[in-house]
Every structure is written in structure tokens, then in C-alpha cells.
């Protein structure tokens, strides 16, 4: 930590951890419901659990991204945040809006549009919140002593993410048009501008952890985000194959989404190469684990598993099955959850002055959560492929198929338990670091 105002990042990270635990809890509710244990149905029916699970994911990741920005931007711009007080106002309002939305889902207060369930009235508050956040970040950046590529890419990602929220707020009478523009938000977030955020955080971490020259890292950062947009924007077409729009998307979406793994491959190669090239061996091993892990697992989860069902010839069978859930879990985990955990692992010792760089519990959290998540992905994958064959090839009824594949959800819940033990260990380590303190500034200087 070089600037006192960076401390605000800690509270965004803490909020992230809290929401992550809730997200996992609701995931278990769904896993058990699929096994037939749906005792909570009267209070938390599946559609509530599902909306809470995915929305908490979005909110905890955004909170993590925001914390990352509050940590990174002062250090890159070489000045304090323009207003710490307003950053706390933003934090509290983010938490209030997020929690209100989640509570509302339990009382049928939502907009049933996958991933964008937040009711319209709260959408406006989200906009105000994000505008405040962006104002603080942009003002700090432009008043700062330097404007680095890392900071610009990160800020650009956050700015575009905010702008892309708007198409999701447009009302349409047609389900098809509604769905079309919903993907402008969801796809262009996760397979577009969020990768800018991820790239920005990754570049910052690699600069700090490997000691490779900033110029080299930032040059490759441009190449990676260039590949991301080159493939990802037209790759949106893979959501348009079979929802009632023109066939042209089969060709455009097919070709460009087949290129999408390249951006993730580049990201993985870049991270591993920079690590090998680096002469500085930073003692924070856990941050290094999560950083390299994120780059590699995102390639497998988002790149390879995405490719596995992105071609129109395959997707015609897998569209609308559990195969999507397989890809979704490892992709979000690798690309976004792990990069947030990486920046937290890096920032926490610097914010608190307690240098817990390499603890057994920390290592356990990394391996247990990763192995658990890979197991969950396999369980979803096997269930999904079986579903495709039974339902769409052998024409069995939906519920009969669900009975046949229910065993895979037992595997899912078991693997999810391992995953959860990893996350709990991570949070225990987080807790042990204690609160951020100004004394950490002096520790850093020494």
C-alpha cells in the first residue's frame, strides 16, 4: 500500500467475500432441490434461488472489481483517491441496492430476465451508484501524475461495462428482441468488457509479481484485449443462432466465437511467459498462484469449454441444456472469480501489514476450490451430455430424463462441498489478516 485511500478497497473485498458465501449457499439449495430435497420450496423456490445465485455472482464480482480499481488506480496514477468519503458512500449504497434486490427476489419482486432480474426501479439506483464510482476513478486518474495503459484498460472496461447496462433497460414487446438486447449486456460484459477489467488487473499483478518491464506487459495487454474484442463482439452471434433471428448469425457467430478461445489462450501464454521471464521473485506465493491459475483456468473454462458447444452444429443440440451450466461455472470461476481472489491475495498483506504470503491453509484453499470446481464442471458436463442424448436424440420426456441424470447432482453436491471448504479456508485467511491500517504504509516503505 502506497496511499492511505487504498484502504477503502479492503471493505469492497470484504463485501465480496460475504456475498460469495451467500452465493454458494443458494447454489447448495439448488443442488439439493435437483436431488429431490426441496424442503425450502415454500420460502425459496428454485427460481428465487437461481436468481439470487447468479445475481450475487454479478454483485460480488463487481464489488471485487471496484475494490481492485480503488486499490490499483491510486498506485498507477500516483496520488490519493479524490474522495475517500464518497467511496464509502458508494460502497454502502452498492451493498444496500444489492441486498434490497436479493431480498426482493424472495417476494416475487423482479424482472424475470435471465441474469438481469433486478427490478427496474433499482436499475436506476445501480446507474447512480456506478456513475459515482466511475466519477471517483476517472477524477483520480486524470488528476494523477501518470496515466498508464494498465489503468486506462481497467478504467475503459469499467466505463464500457456501465454503458452496456443501458441496452438491458430498454423495454420491448417481443421476447425475441428482448432476448437479443439482453445479450448485449450479458455477453458483451462477460466475453467483452469484463475481459478488459480482467486484463487490467492481470497486467497490474504481473508487473508487481514478476518485475517484468511495464512496457512489455502493457504491449501484450493491448494485443490480448484487441483479440478479445475482435472475436468477442461478433461472437455475440452465438446467442442468436436459435432464438428467432436471421440465419446470418449462424455464420458470423460461428466463425467469430470459434476465435474467442484465442484471447484466453493469449492471456494464459502471456501470464506464464511473463512469470518465466521475470527476475523478481515476489514472496507473495498465494497471489502468484491465483494470478497464474486465473489465466490458465479461464482458458480451459471460458476458452475450451466455450468452444465445445459454440459451433452452430453442436449448439443446436446443447442450446438450453445443462451443458451451458458446465461451461458457465468454470468460465466464471477461472476468468473472474479467480482474478478477484488474486488481487485480494496480493492487496491484503499490503493493506493490513501482515505478510501471510504462503500458509498451508492458503494453499489448501487454492487447490480445494479449484479441484472442487473442476469436479462440479465435470458433473454438469456429464449430466448435460446425457440430457442432450436422452431428451433430444431419444425423445424422452423432460422429467424422465431429469430422474435419469439425478445421480450426477449427487456428484455435483459432493464436489461443491470440497469447493466450499476451499472458499471457507480462503475467508479464514482473509479474516486472519485483520483490518487495514495506516501503519501498513510504513511496513511497505521498509
Amino acid at each position: 500500500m502506497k496511499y492511505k485511500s487504498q484502504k477503502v478497497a479492503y471493505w469492497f473485498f470484504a463485501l465480496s467475500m460475504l456475498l460469495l458465501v451467500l452465493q454458494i449457499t443458494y447454489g447448495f439449495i439448488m443442488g439439493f432441490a435437483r436431488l429431490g430435497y426441496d424442503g425450502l420450496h415454500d420460502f425459496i423456490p428454485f427460481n428465487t434461488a437461481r436468481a439470487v445465485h447468479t445475481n450475487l455472482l454479478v454483485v460480488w464480482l463487481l464489488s471485487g472489481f471496484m475494490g481492485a480499481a480503488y486499490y490499483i488506480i491510486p498506485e498507477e496514477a500516483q496520488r490519493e483517491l479524490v474522495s475517500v468519503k464518497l467511496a464509502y458512500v458508494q460502497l454502502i449504497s452498492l451493498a444496500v441496492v444489492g441486498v434490497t434486490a436479493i431480498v426482493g427476489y424472495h417476494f416475487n419482486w423482479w424482472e424475470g430476465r435471465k441474469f438481469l432480474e433486478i427490478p427496474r426501479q433499482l436499475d436506476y439506483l445501480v446507474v447512480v451508484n456506478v456513475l459515482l464510482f466511475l466519477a471517483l476513478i476517472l477524477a483520480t486518474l486524470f488528476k494523477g501524475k501518470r496515466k498508464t495503459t494498465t489503468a486506462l484498460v481497467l478504467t475503459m472496461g469499467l466505463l464500457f461495462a456501465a454503458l452496456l447496462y443501458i441496452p438491458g433497460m430498454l423495454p420491448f414487446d417481443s421476447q425475441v428482441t428482448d432476448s437479443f438486447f439482453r445479450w448485449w449486456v450479458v455477453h458483451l460484459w462477460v466475453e467483452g468488457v469484463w475481459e478488459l477489467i480482467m486484463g487490467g488487473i492481470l497486467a497490474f499483478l504481473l508487473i508487481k509479481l514478476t518485475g517484468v518491464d511495464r512496457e512489455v506487459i502493457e504491449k501484450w495487454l493491448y494485443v490480448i484485449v484487441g483479440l478479445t474484442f475482435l472475436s468477442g463482439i461478433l461472437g455475440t452471434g452465438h446467442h442468436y443462432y436459435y432464438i428467432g433471428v436471421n440465419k446470418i448469425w449462424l455464420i458470423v457467430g460461428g466463425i467469430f466465437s470459434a476465435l474467442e478461445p484465442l484471447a484466453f489462450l493469449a492471456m494464459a501464454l502471456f501470464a506464464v511467459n511473463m512469470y518465466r521471464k521475470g527476475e523478481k521473485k515476489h514472496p507473495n506465493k498465494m497471489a502468484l498462484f491465483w494470478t497464474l491459475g486465473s489465466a490458465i483456468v479461464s482458458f480451459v473454462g471460458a476458452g475450451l469449454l466455450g468452444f465445445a458447444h459454440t459451433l452452430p452444429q453442436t449448439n443446436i443440440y446443447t442450446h438450453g441444456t445443462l451443458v451451458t451450466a458446465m461451461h458457465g461455472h468454470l468460465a466464471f470461476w477461472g476468468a473472474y472469480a479467480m482474478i478477484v481472489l488474486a488481487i485480494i491475495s496480493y492487496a491484503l498483506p499490503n493493506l493490513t501489514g501482515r505478510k501471510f504470503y504462503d500458509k498451508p491453509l492458503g494453499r489448501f484453499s487454492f487447490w480445494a476450490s479449484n479441484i472442487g470446481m473442476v469436479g462440479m464442471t465435470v458433473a454438469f458436463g456429464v449430466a448435460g451430455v446425457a440430457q442432450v442424448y436422452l431428451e433430444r436424440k431419444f425423445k424422452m420426456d423432460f422429467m424422465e430424463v431429469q430422474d435419469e441424470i439425478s445421480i450426477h447432482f449427487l456428484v455435483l453436491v459432493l464436489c461443491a462441498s470440497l469447493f466450499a471448504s476451499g472458499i471457507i479456508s480462503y475467508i479464514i485467511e482473509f479474516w486472519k489478516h485483520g483490518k487495514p491500517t495506516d501503519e501498513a504504509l510504513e511496513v511497505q516503505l521498509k
Partner: protein
Amino acid sequence: MLSKKQARAFFLGGTLVTFLIFIGLTIYSFSKPQDQTNAENITEAVVRGKDLWEANNCMGCHTILGEGAYYAPELTKVMERRGEGYIKAVLMTPNAWNPNGRKMVAYGFSEQEAKDLIAFFEWIGEIDLNGFDRVVSPLAKDKD
């Protein structure tokens, strides 16, 4: 070897070009001759049905046009598969619906609401889905 300036030009140039193509294709897709949804059939009842579909987050369990939560059946071709009487019964029953042990919330919709949802499903069922309509519900196809 690639310079940082060239890398930046690649990023900005590639983004601008693909974004413009994307906008162009979007406008093309929504031009009238390209419509595959029978947009003229979107009546007020269909819109009310869509509102109910969203207000109750049906997508949080079911899928439609292949989008949703994979917990309950795909409803794109539900009219062909189940017929109006069955669907009305499910929508209007005040008791929890519990097919094969998996529970659905008992919404207890009114007659009018059930009609609106059925109008919505009827419109959905007629959309040209580029071949997916045949895959998504083979059971419906077999009924022909």
C-alpha cells in the same frame, strides 16, 4: 517485432471495425423482410402474457427459445405438446403442482391471465428458429 503503438492500433482498429459490422448486422436482422417472429401477431394479449412471464420469473426454472434455468421443461412448443386444457389447469390450480416429484409454485392465475400466457406461448411456438424448433421438442413433432 510489434511495437506498443502498433498493438494499440490493432486493439482500437479491430474493436471499431467489428463493432460497426455488429451494428450493421443488428439493423439488418431487425429489418422487416428478415422478420422470423411474425411480429404482426404480437397482440396485446401476447404482450400481457410476456409481462406475466417476466413478473413471475418463469425463466428461473423453465426454458423458452432454449433460454432459462433447465430445472423445468422447455416451453417453446408447449402448446403443441400439451394443448390448451392441460396448460390452463397447471396455470390456474391453487394447489402446488408436483409432476414427477418436482414442485412448481402454485400461481393460481385467473382465467384471463391464463389466456394471456397461452397467447404468448402460441406466438412463441410459431417463431422460425433456424431448425432448433425441430430439435427442441421432438415430442411435439411426433404428435403430428
